């Protein structure tokens, strides 16, 4: 699903060069739920931004669902992002003056679906997160947990291959966080690959696989859960372990 090979990202000013990622290798298989952990400044967000095609990289290769994105122009990356990726942010990032229906509608508009198809997908996505009855509500009328559910519905509506979640429970209390996490697990069980950046070791522990980033490099594979082995197959998980740590 996602493979980065010897990837590097350098931020340059006229005075200094900062290597946010260097020799970065990762391979995420279809159907996996991978948690990315690491200390602040380690490169987690840079990795997620590059994975989400929100930033370009300086060197190496990145293949997303069979498409090599190296050298792709901005428009092509936007199109690919719209078709293959879903985003969930720590701050929810809903558009405040659009109701839930219209918020979920945003990525579908850019996909070019007709009105009937969009309606079907929006209702389906909001139904999956348990907010069917609140389609005409505005984000400000919802709790934090509900807002994050809307963000998840928005990410799911386009049926993405890969869901990128950046601290999805960071702004939620523990009860709401648990609900959101259960929803993500459910989505993963239904076949969507999830890549989640988190500081929370408890959440990371619930992922099938952990990737730890330090100083812009993948440093260690923390663990794999038995659940993930069941989901993606023991053999492939073992291969992934080997591949990601060589």
């Amino acid at each position, binding site marked *: 699903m996602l493979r980065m090979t010897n990837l590097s990202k350098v931020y340059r000013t006229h005075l200094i060069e900062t290597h946010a990622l260097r020799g970065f290798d990762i391979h995420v298989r279809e159907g996996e739920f991978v948690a990315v952990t690491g200390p602040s400044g380690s490169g987690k*967000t840079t990795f997620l*931004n590059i994975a*989400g095609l*929100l*930033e370009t990289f300086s060197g190496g290769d990145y293949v997303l669902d069979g498409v090599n994105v190296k050298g792709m122009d*901005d*428009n092509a990356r*936007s*199109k690919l*992002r*719209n*078709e293959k990726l879903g*985003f969930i*942010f720590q*701050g929810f*990032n*809903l*558009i405040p*003056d*659009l109701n839930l229906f219209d918020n979920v509608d*945003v*990525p579908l*508009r*850019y*996909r070019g679906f007709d009105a009937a198809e969009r309606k079907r997908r929006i209702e389906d996505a909001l139904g999956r997160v348990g907010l069917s009855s609140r389609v005409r509500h505005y984000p400000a009328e919802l709790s934090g947990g509900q807002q994050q559910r809307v963000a998840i519905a*928005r990410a799911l509506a*386009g049926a993405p291959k890969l869901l990128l979640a*950046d601290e999805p429970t960071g702004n939620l209390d523990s009860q709401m966080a648990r609900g959101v996490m259960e929803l993500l697990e459910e989505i993963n069980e239904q076949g969507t690959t999830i890549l989640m950046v988190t500081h929370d070791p408890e959440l990371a522990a619930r992922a099938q696989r952990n990737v730890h980033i330090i100083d812009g490099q993948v440093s260690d594979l923390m663990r794999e859960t038995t659940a993930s082995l069941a989901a993606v197959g023991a053999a492939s998980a073992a291969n992934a372990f080997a591949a990601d740590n060589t």
Partner: protein
Amino acid sequence: MFRYYFQLGIRSLRRNPMLTALMVVTLAVGVAASMATFTVLYTMSGDPIPHKSDRLFVPRMDNAPIVGYAAGDEPSDQMTYQDAINLLASGQGVRRTAVYGIGSAIDSGRADLPPILVQGVAPTRDFFAMFEVPFLYGGPWDAATEASARDAIVLSRETSEKLYGAGVNPVGKSVRIDDTEWRITGVADTWKPMPRYYRLINGNGGGFVGSEDFFLPFQAAIRHEFGNNGNNNCNGEGPKEPGFQGWIKSECDFIQFWFEGKSAADQPRLKEFLAAYVTDQKKLGRYPRPINVRLENVMEWMKHLGVVSADAKLSTWLAFGFLLVCLVNTVGLLLAKFSARAGEIGVRRALGATRPEIFRQFLTEAAVIGLVGGALGLMLSFGGLWLISLQSEEMALVAKMDWAMLATTLGLAVGASILAGLLPTWRACQVTPALQLKTQ
């Protein structure tokens, strides 16, 4: 997607309503000021007879004495009776008319109605076809009447209604002017070309105000020695003989002359004819100056006479300058409005919007502001025109907005807001989504 962007634009008006209101008012005031003054300029400088203005020509010939001659002198705007008669007989052009202003009192013969003071013109019968004067009843006097300078008259609708009442056809009746019976051949319907190009040098109103109450055959008016109600320019010595006959034999010019050509291409040929005519007249001892002839079509003629005042042009320039100031302000306000939307732009980009899509969305939002500003600007324009119309009777006539100006007002507002939106929209497109998403 345009409909989607338009809907977002409408929604965006409600977001930060104070800023939106400021932009709309700024734009509306700028548009109203420029459109109110531009409407006046547009009416003043409009083509009063667009389908043939390029083939109606005013001849001008310099018959002034050699004393005081300076190279580059403009020939007189009118011509002498002698020249008018000669040019009428020349057969040049498809139609010709000499026109001069007359005024008198019409006696209807009714005991209950005192004589009506009227002002009009004495043209040839070609005048009516050349300038497309509409007729309510009858028509111009016939060729035989003209040839024998018989007493015929065309009344204006207004004059006819004063004399006979509305809905009465007076053709065939006679009216008395200065103890002469004039047979009515026609009643001209309301006819007020704007500007009044056929008689810009006149004694009853000016370039915009006034209309003709009656029309007498040119030669009949001369035969009855109607004086000129308008400018009379006697160069040099003036008439050598006394009285009306002395005046019309002199080099005094008081007649407006018009040719109608087959097409605009007749202009150089007619001008050559004028030069040849002056050469012939020189042999008769007239036209002491070097040959200096002009032949101007309607628009050139209006430009020559300065129908559009320099003040009107200056006001329009100033108003458009003011619009520019308003636009600069709108740019600033849009920058503030759009920069507050960086988070939304980041989200849209993350969800798959390309930069061109963001560009189109925000430019449409700017256009929606322009549309609302244009609607308000239109109302303010009407208010501005009303204020202008209070200045004078002439201004009241020209300060009127037609459909073209109405559409231009809305178009200008939308165009101006799109122009003002270009920089803020371009800035909006430069938003780095990754940065915005993290900082939201």
